[in-house]
């Protein structure tokens, strides 16, 4: 969830992530940073893999675990205002998500679509659903079985940034890939 975490930060986030994966980054930092670029070196090659894979730089996260996914892959991508197309800066993250999910085939995910508050409630529920499905479609087109993916829209009900203004709005326009099962636990 953070771009180039130093060892200390990563460990701190990993601890929080275990309790509340979806809020890991902002819960552990008073002033969180929201990367819109992929974490370097986190994405393994997308080619065919045989399990178990060589462990990437995990810094405390068990390979195949939720922490591994959150820290080393990135569990959230961002969108433009009232848009649901996958931005260029989101593609490497989703490529990495697809590769990771391919390597750990038991893992299931729920894609949660989120919106900023600069839209009305019902429209944003529909928009969040579009975002979640855009991510789902991307992952499926990159080899992840659709049976492993569910989607939900939270509309503007679950902002990750409690601020107001364009910076907060940008953070809150996202799709979060939440692991719902099959991940390594330790």
């Amino acid at each position, binding site marked *: 969830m953070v771009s180039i975490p130093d060892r200390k930060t990563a460990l701190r986030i990993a601890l929080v992530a275990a309790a509340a994966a979806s809020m890991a980054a902002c819960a552990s930092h008073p002033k969180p940073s929201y990367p819109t670029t992929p974490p370097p070196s986190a994405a393994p090659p997308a080619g065919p893999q045989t399990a178990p894979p060589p462990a990437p730089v995990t810094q405390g996260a068990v390979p195949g675990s939720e922490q591994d996914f959150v820290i080393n892959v990135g569990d959230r991508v961002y969108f433009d205002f009232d848009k649901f197309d996958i931005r260029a800066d989101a593609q490497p993250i989703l490529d990495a998500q697809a590769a990771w999910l391919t390597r750990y085939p038991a893992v299931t995910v729920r894609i949660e679509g989120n919106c900023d*508050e600069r839209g009305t*409630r*019902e*429209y944003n529920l529909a*928009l969040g659903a*579009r975002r979640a499905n*855009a991510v789902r479609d991307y992952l499926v087109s990159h080899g992840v079985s659709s049976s492993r993916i569910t989607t939900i829209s939270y509309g503007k009900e679950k*902002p990750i940034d409690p601020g*107001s203004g364009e910076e907060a709005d940008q953070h809150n326009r996202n799709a979060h890939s939440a692991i719902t099962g099959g991940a390594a636990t330790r």
Partner: protein
Amino acid sequence: MRLMSLFLALFAVFAVASAAAPAWAEIEVNVNRGDVQPLPIAIPAFGGPQGADIAGVISANLQRSGLFRPLDPASFVEHDLDPAVQPRFPLWKQINAQALLNGQVVVEDGRLKVAFRLWDVNAEQQLLGLEFTSTPDNWRRIAHKISDAVYERLTGEKGYFDTRVVFVAESGGRGAKVKRLAIMDQDGANPSYLTDGSFIVMTPRFSSTSQEITYMALRPDGSSVYLFNLETGRRESLGQFPGMVFAPRFSPDGSRVAFSVERAGNSDIYVMDLRNRSTVRLTSDPAIDTSPSFSPDGRSITFNSDRSGSPQLYVMGADGSNPHRISFGQGRYTTPVWSPTGEYIAFTKQTGGEFHIGVMKPDGSDERILTSSYLDEGPTWAPNGRVLMFAREGADGRSRLWTVDVTGRILQPVPYPLSGSDPAWSPLLQ
């Protein structure tokens, strides 16, 4: 005839001495004029137990309508009025009261009996004389019924004070909000919670009976639309759908519910007949189609769609026929709601960095913007189509309920001190 219909709407009661003289008031409030001068009205404390409380509630109701200006009781010269006796009109003329409302409360067999009379001060004439009876704990409802009777007698239109509002009570800041379904009187009194806040609830709406609501709940495992009977407490799901189901709203006769179903990212509008639970799909468009709202005759539906490339308002037949766009102004239009009179469609509009509540005719003409703020959203109509309630959220993330009249002249917060959103106004109570 007017007295008769009022009388039928009351719970118990008989009319005392309706005006024997031809009921032509010389005073009247013209609700259609944008520059209306509020009518000065004197409402002294009613005699008897809780008489002052009842007069206070009536006074606050009429003041908030913007059509009346209740006078300061400290200026009153005549005191201890007996409704059975004509007031001394010169004493009321001298403080420039044009109308006078006085009443008397008595308790008989454990029941509260409230008799009142409305007078035209200048014509020295009685306009209204009625008596309401109820249990003592219902004294606020009696005050609301009297308010409605006065409003109707002086404006010629039905009132909206004996009504309730179902809404989402919010606590906690942005990102950590707890949302509970709640209900209160239209003046913010008697709030109570209907859900416990363990999951997010949204967009409650009343049926025409005022006894049933429908709302959307967002649970961790998905969403559901529920029907909730306020009398029995019975709650049932609208059923299972392949994707997210949201944006429910009753038809005017309460027999159908229109809503959106999202499937693979695409939202379309459906309608369910509650008698046999059959569902018909009304839109089939790759765009977002949501927020359906019936016309009062049940024959048309206005809805929100971004099929043109941005969210705009549309109208179609209740069977999905002939969808056509009605909003063409600058900006993004959402949350259309047909007024109970059929005259207008209210909406939320976004322009620049601001949100507005506005109204337009169902053919899209006569668009009028009534409010502007950081975030105004989700209008709901008072049953007489004169006032809109909506949620206004500040940049601090705190949402409050506000009202604005259809002319845009009278904008004020609802006297409910806590945070709330998604208000829905009930019809007049039975």
